[in-house]
């Protein structure tokens, strides 16, 4: 019933009389309920920041009431809340359930499943460390990904273009490429002067393989007629590479970049856990050492935001670069 109402509301834009968003109001109710449970139901053991968290959830509820009443008069914000209201409702319910299961009834054992209050405490008191760790991770990943993507792209273009490069590189790529980058970890920490440079190498390595393979296949699958057209128009070999082969292969290259970025996350975390004395992977490890489970969840939360943020960023870049594909390919 509720879902039908939302769909009707989304379709009815612009609405004749800006209607109240009922689901958004329902979501507000769920957040108020979560705050009430938190505040009124006695915790099993002492929990910090109960009132503060209840205040935050209550504030979310008030904001949702305002948004729900303003409805579609708010333009973009209104449309967003209309679309996401079921999610806002579900998260509110989730918060309440989480509180009940951990702080109130202890059905989920402590301290392995921290209470919401404990998690808030981590963010309030340990945010400088988490932020520093996150920025360190992003920077390490950026360096490794950049060099890996560059090397993979160059190898892929070389293999796609030159028979000699392909002859020598293909067997190497076939043999060494599938090896998980983490298998190099013990050696890399020996060979490289610092654990940081070793990690950059490992991340680059894990990125380079998929980028190289997909760039190569992208260049190999370029329509032969494109080259012939360009040649009759007086194109030099360099022009054929830079203006025909590479642009035509770019959609493949981006697939490789996505695959490379995903594998590089795994390598990043492992490298940070085992060698580098910083970053979110290290933070996780460190928190485990102190049995600080809430800190681990906080780190996971930030790590997820980081990874999905970087993937989104790459999507945005692709949408820009491959704007010509719109209408050719369904994304």
């Amino acid at each position, binding site marked *: 019933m509720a879902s039908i109402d939302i769909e009707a509301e989304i379709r009815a834009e612009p609405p004749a009389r800006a209607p109240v968003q009922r689901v958004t109001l329902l979501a507000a109710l769920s957040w108020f309920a979560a705050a009430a449970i938190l505040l009124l139901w006695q915790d099993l053991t002492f929990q910090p920041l109960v009132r503060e968290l209840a205040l935050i959830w209550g504030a979310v509820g008030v904001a949702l009431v305002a948004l729900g009443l303003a409805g579609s008069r708010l333009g973009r914000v209104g449309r967003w809340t209309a679309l996401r209201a079921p999610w806002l409702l579900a998260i509110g319910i989730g918060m309440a359930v989480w509180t009940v299961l951990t702080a109130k009834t202890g059905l989920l054992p402590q301290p392995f499943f921290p209470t919401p209050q404990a998690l808030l405490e981590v963010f309030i008191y340990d945010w400088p460390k988490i932020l520093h760790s996150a920025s360190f991770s992003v920077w390490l990943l950026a360096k490794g990904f950049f060099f890996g993507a560059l090397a993979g792209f160059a190898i892929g273009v070389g293999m796609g273009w030159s028979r000699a490069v392909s002859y020598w590189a293909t067997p190497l790529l076939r043999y060494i490429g599938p090896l998980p980058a983490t298998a190099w970890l013990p050696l890399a920490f020996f060979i490289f002067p610092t654990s940081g440079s070793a990690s950059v190498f490992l991340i680059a390595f894990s990125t380079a393989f998929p980028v190289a393979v997909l760039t190569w296949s992208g260049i190999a699958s370029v329509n032969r007629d494109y080259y012939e057209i360009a040649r009759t128009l*007086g194109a030099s070999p360099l*022009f054929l590479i830079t203006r025909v082969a590479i642009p035509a292969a770019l959609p493949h290259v981006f697939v490789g970049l996505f695959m490379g970025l995903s594998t590089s996350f795994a390598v990043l975390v492992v490298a940070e856990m085992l060698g580098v004395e910083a970053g979110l992977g290290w933070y996780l490890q460190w928190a485990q050492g102190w049995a600080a489970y809430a800190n681990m969840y906080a780190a996971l939360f930030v790590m997820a935001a980081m990874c999905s943020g970087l993937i989104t960023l790459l999507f945005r870049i692709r949408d820009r670069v491959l704007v010509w594909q719109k209408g050719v390919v369904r994304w």
Partner: protein
Amino acid sequence: MVASALKTVPQAAGTEINIQTVSHHFDLEGAPLPVLDDITFDIEPGSFVALLGPSGCGKSTLLRLIAGLDHPAQGQIQVAGEKVADPDPSRILVFQDPTLFPWRNVRANVALGLEAQGTLKSEGHRVDEAIRLVGLTGFDKAYPHQLSGGMAQRVALARALVNRPNVLLLDEPLGKLDSLTRMTMQTELVRLWQQSGLTAVLVTHDVEEALYLAQRVIVFGPRPARIVADLQVDLPYPRHRGDPRLAELRHQALGHLGLDSSW
């Protein structure tokens, strides 16, 4: 004659093409498959010649040889008295598929030749000229997937003409268009050829198209291609599809293609 009466756009004049005892074959799993058998003929500068024959007879191969994309196994081809060795912007091939670069908009596609030759900066105005010539002004920013088949083929023509070629090689350029667009484009092709004064060589398997467009129709037999007839189309432009002389020539051409019984 007619060309001088029309508004002309500066273009290099058409050049002469000499095809001398050209034979060619493909390697098909080690066995040679002959496609051209001892072809010799000359094309006068500035003329419009159609190569007519059944599909797969090897006429497209001959066009690729003139373009310099392939080299004949025997014999040689001269354009403007020089042996064809490599592709050159003075001889441009237009394919059956427009094969526009999908990542470039109309303007960038048309500019391709000038960009490749490094003259885009000094000769950029020719891009607008070519786009105007094919009637696509205002579509500069459109991407190929937004164009209809006929428009895409116009862009392909503009991409060829912007280089001011001496020879325009047309490999069934209208083959994939619907019949109405096709007729419009046929008239357009004649106009473009007359305005530019270049030598046009059209490969087609459409008898009517060949006779409607060309001054001379060379009829090829089935593979390996041999010349079976050389018809002069002694009609002034603009031509009329219902002209009884065209029908007469069509009858003749069909006879040479072994389709006399269908008349």
